[in-house]
């Protein structure tokens, strides 16, 4: 992909409409979650001002239970309505089969899957590679746009894992030729700290030739664990990793995800957007 196409965008939050009116010139697109559009279709109004890149957390790619046909149909509709150039989804599961929880069924929702309401990293092994690959084929056939998978932050080792996250991602990309990479650099950094590897050594082992979109956000350190935090600015190490990535790859988009706090300091947001653009220029790229 030509470097000249690299756009810089923000993840949608309650502040986005007013941000677009006053500072829209600083960004190229807005990333919007499908779940938000489904809940509040009026959010699509941002597409009058900036293009939308659609993000998703409902497909449970690594799960044993599939997303419902209703959900997939709704997603396909929003893919068309937003004219998103691709669809990013997490490499995770969000629902799990409750029937496998043994003979004691949930009293109030017998047989219904557990709905965690958040992306969870699966056991990383060849079985999960096959599950994810099959799911990607299913959704690629239903959706009219390329799919990207995003690395999930890992907070604890899931039993049954025989691969590290980089190996897991490599194997999925080996078996999914049309798949693009959505590299969340903050997630990658968090995983490296929680799982004990050097992110600067490992990041080049990701399939960066298939990199399409990058995410950055903040990090918390609590209870000896690193946590994702979209209410804080990305630390310097995330920008250092971004620089390493940009020296080797040409993403189409870089999304600044500061969307958990509607009153996120504007100066910080604008400053980090400018910092991303400076990095793009320094590494030989062009801001679109």
């Amino acid at each position, binding site marked *: 992909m030509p470097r000249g196409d690299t756009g810089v965008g923000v993840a949608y939050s309650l502040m986005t409409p007013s941000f677009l009116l006053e500072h829209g010139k600083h960004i190229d697109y807005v990333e919007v979650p499908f779940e938000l559009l489904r809940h509040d279709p009026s959010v699509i109004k941002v597409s009058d001002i900036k293009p939308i890149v659609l993000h998703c957390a409902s497909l449970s790619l690594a799960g*044993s239970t599939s997303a419902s046909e209703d959900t997939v149909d709704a997603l396909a509709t929003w893919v068309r309505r937003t004219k998103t150039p691709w669809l990013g989804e997490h490499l995770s*599961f969000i*629902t799990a089969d409750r029937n496998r929880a043994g003979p004691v069924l949930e009293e109030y929702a017998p047989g219904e899957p557990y709905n965690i309401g958040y992306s969870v990293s699966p*056991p990383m092994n060849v079985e999960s590679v096959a599950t994810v690959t099959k799911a990607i084929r299913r959704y690629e056939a239903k959706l009219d746009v390329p799919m990207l998978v995003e690395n999930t932050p890992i907070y604890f080792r899931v039993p049954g894992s025989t691969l590290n996250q980089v190996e897991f991602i490599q194997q999925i990309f080996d078996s999914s030729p049309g798949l693009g990479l959505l590299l969340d650099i903050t997630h990658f950094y968090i995983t490296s700290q929680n799982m004990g590897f050097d992110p600067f050594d490992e990041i080049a082992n990701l399939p960066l030739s298939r990199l399409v979109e990058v995410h950055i956000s903040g990090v918390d350190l609590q209870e000896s664990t690193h946590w994702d935090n979209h209410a804080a600015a990305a630390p310097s190490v995330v920008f250092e990793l971004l620089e390493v990535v940009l020296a080797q790859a040409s993403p189409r988009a870089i999304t600044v995800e500061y969307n958990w706090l509607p009153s996120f300091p504007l100066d910080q947001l604008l400053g980090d957007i400018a910092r991303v653009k400076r990095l793009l220029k320094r590494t030989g790229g062009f801001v679109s």
Partner: protein
Amino acid sequence: MNAAVNSIIARCLMDPYYLQEIKRDRSSALREYALDTPLLEDFQTFDASRCEIFGGFITKVQLNQLWEVIPYTRLLLSLSGLEPKIFVAYRNSAPLPTKRVSRDQKTALFLDFLATYLRRRRSERFQTLLTLLMHERTVWAIGKKLLTSVSEDRKYTRWKGKEIDSAVPRTRGVLALVKLAHDPFEIVSRLRQDERTVPMATKQLTYFAYSADPTRMKLQILRLEKLTWLILSHVDGRKDVMTILRRVAPHQFSRLLARDGRIVFRNLRRSRVIELGRATTE
């Protein structure tokens, strides 16, 4: 096997009783799943405590609106290292929702939980947090009430001298009276100066009135003398000035002069906290 692993992880995140069982007796908790021996062995090193904190983290993210409602309480929770424990405790205590609740209801449920949690703990760091929480919760609740309150234009009456004794005070708009163990503004000010250090606050009982007038859509927070706070706590739109002063006086202010009380009422009216009307006969 992955389906079973996903189910177990999901169950640990969704069912606090099961998670405790996993912590207490892992082999017994996993017996109902048909796991092979290597996986059973792998589960022996599963970090259930970190999984539990991850559950608290999910709850925290699902309550992101709290960043706006109680910003300094949250900052202090984070600085004190209490944030993960609080969200784990909340997740473990709250039943899974069986019906849709509004964002405000979710916020109120969490704030109630946090207030109870902090009240049960006597150490100073919890009490400082409780002061901040009560302050920020009151500001939030007043703002919500203000949106639904109706402003009424009442005829302004001038009360001369002792005539005021028969006036019936009513609160203007929305009023909350709060007694706090510290001054929340001192804590906020210290947090603003240094966002990385837990502030030491002076323990001193402080009386506040949070008053919002719908005609102005503006909140004012008044630091009150104890007498004024007590007088205001008796204002109900039915009792007249002298009745209120008599109610206040026998308890702690036996030497209270009616003259001081009248000044209090005039000042409160000037500050638009109350208005003074005539008694109505029903």
